[in-house]
């Protein structure tokens, strides 16, 4: 329509003998190479579009599959084979036989079926074991590594049925049945006379770390003195060194009672003890009843003759 707004002079043509008859279906078409290129361009665009759609559908399907899979445990299988070897390592004396009795593992069981956490718990329930690690060594082995307590004392207890039993006291106060220790090694350990609590029970043992400190120091610096210790009495040591009158008592064949102040310097006290014993020896080994090293700045030696010498 020309002259828009007024409707003047429409120019349309139709009916017979109009150009539209020539443009009807079946008319001539003169093609050029550009037609083919245009068609290819369209096809490529359509294919590209379909590829993009396909990609998004595939990505969506993959995400959906992932989401569905997450609802169940992942089925990842390790390269495990039946158990063939158990690699046992310890920094102490526990023997392989003990391990066999304790863990009760059968060769041939699937490595992945072994509950290593339960195994670790069972091992650590044994008093002599301070800590344990259990590892799967693929494809067919189990490694068990044990760290044992260090024994410092022996304890003889009488059970309710009257039987006498020897137990071991570790440096942290743990009491356990010693397994695998040689007789000689046990013989070197002094006996412990524990502090008795108000209910008459000796457990738990308190103040053992402090006592172990004294024993280790004397073993290291004065081994001849240490070999003399036969009994360590905590009768007057409740475990709290800050309390007044806390005394660790040692009993030897030579001197029945040697008293150490629990809150005093062990090095100084041992030095004094060494001096006193050498002095006694030099004086012809008179019979000594008691040496008290717990006095402040002093040491008292009580002879069997009731004579008391005060040394500074």
């Amino acid at each position, binding site marked *: *329509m*020309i*002259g*828009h*707004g*007024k*409707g*003047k*002079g*429409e*120019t*349309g*043509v139709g*009916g017979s*003998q*109009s*150009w539209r*008859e*020539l*443009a009807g279906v079946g*008319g*001539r*078409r*003169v*093609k*050029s*190479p*550009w*037609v083919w*290129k*245009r*068609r290819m*361009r*369209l096809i490529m*665009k*359509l294919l*590209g*579009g379909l590829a993009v759609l396909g990609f998004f559908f595939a990505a969506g399907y993959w995400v959906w599959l992932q989401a569905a899979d997450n609802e169940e445990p992942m089925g990842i299988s390790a390269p495990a084979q039946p158990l063939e070897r158990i690699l046992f390592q310890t920094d102490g004396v526990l023997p392989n036989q003990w391990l066999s009795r304790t863990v009760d593992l059968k060769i041939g069981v699937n490595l992945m079926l072994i509950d290593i956490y339960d195994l670790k718990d069972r091992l650590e329930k044994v008093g002599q074991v301070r800590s344990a690690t259990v590892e799967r060594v693929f494809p067919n082995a189990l490694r068990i590594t044990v760290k044992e307590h260090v024994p410092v004392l022996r304890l003889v207890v009488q059970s309710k049925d009257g039987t006498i039993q020897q137990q071991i006291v570790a440096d942290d106060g743990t009491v356990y049945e010693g397994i695998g220790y040689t007789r000689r090694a046990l013989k070197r350990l002094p006996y412990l006379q524990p502090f008795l609590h108000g209910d008459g029970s000796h457990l738990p043992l308190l103040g053992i770390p402090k006592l172990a400190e004294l024993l280790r120091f004397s073993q290291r610096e004065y081994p001849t003195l240490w070999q003399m210790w036969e009994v360590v009495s905590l009768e007057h040591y409740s475990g709290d060194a800050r309390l007044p009158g806390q005394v660790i008592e040692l009993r030897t064949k030579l001197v029945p009672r040697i008293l150490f102040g629990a809150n005093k310097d062990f090095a100084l006290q041992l030095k004094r003890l060494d001096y006193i014993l050498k002095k006694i020896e030099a004086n012809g080994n008179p019979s000594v009843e008691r040496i008290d090293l717990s006095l402040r700045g002093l040491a008292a030696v009580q002879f069997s003759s009731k004579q008391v010498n005060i040394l500074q």
Partner: protein
Amino acid sequence: MSQDRVVGAVEIGTSKVAVLLGEIVGKGGLNIIGHVAATSKGVKKGMISDLYAASDCVHAAIMTAEKNANTRIEEVYLAQTGAHLQGVFNVGVTSVRSANGVVEKSDIEQAKEDAKGRDLPTDQTYIHHIRNPFRLDGQALENPLAQVGRRLEVGYWSVHGDSQNVSNSLSVIRGFNLHVRDMIISSIASGVILLEEAEKEAGALVIDIGAGTSDYVLYRNGYIVKTGVVSVGGDHITNDLSIGLRVGRKGAEEIKIKHGCAVYRSSDREETVWLYGDLTIGDRQYPKAAITRIIDARVGEIFSIIKEQLEAASLFQASDIAAGIVLTGGTSRLDGIAEAAESQFGLEARLASGPPDVAPELRCPEYSTALGLLHYALTGQEEAQESAKPYGFLRHLTNILNNEK
């Protein structure tokens, strides 16, 4: 239904093929989204002489435009030109049938049918039926419905052309698998975009001087009363210069562009111009008078033919062309051409200036026709949408793909 569509305006000219891509948005918006002007092949004096060569260059131009705009044309508005186009003014007459003399719709349709139903020779095809005002008992009316009278007349300026030539143009577009929505002759397309409504009412003559033809359209009282094609254009001026100055066509074209003037002036006798102006071998001097005399004569011939055709139709009256002459087309760039038109017609003449709301590069005279085609696409879209086929899935998918950047 309001739906965006991409239309192409295609003008197959003698020297160039112009393609504009327009996106019609809703019912009133048009975005020009691509344009290509390519060298034409296989076209002489506006008519296709080699179908395959013409198809090759037209298809290449459309393809390039589509590629640049990243879209696909859905339908084409095609310009038609050439000396084969002719016009005839037919008048349809009917007697008002109602007893009380009130004009009814059927009376109007009867008058229209009478005017448009004239048979043409079998080798001719109608391109436009351009309606002029109705006359009821001799009184001019825009719409005679419900008016009282006895004799109803309506005149149509009917443009027709050679069926073979029209078919050739359609074959080129159909060969690219595109549908021709409408065919508009070049002069009408140029006129519709270059003239204001007031100028059409006052009367105006638009002359589109292309390379092979010069098309014109005459408006009076807002109606197109005559169109015509003169098979002389800028190429003839180049040819005349080539023969007259004894220089090759390329050199003649260069002289026309650089030194050409449509009006001979006495001062030209004292002036000489160089062919290339760079003093290279082959560069020659020419008297400017020789150049302007040749151009003056040829341009004068074009205008005189148009004037004669208007006078022969008793349509050349200065008072009825008060808005003057508007010149467009590539050859209208010739210096002094408006002056030559004023001298020949005795009317005020001016060079066309493209619509201000299009990009500057599209305001040049070469794009007037293509812009007019897009204007047609916009103003005629309601009719187009009514008859448009509903889009299928593949068309929608194609549109989505084309629109993704």
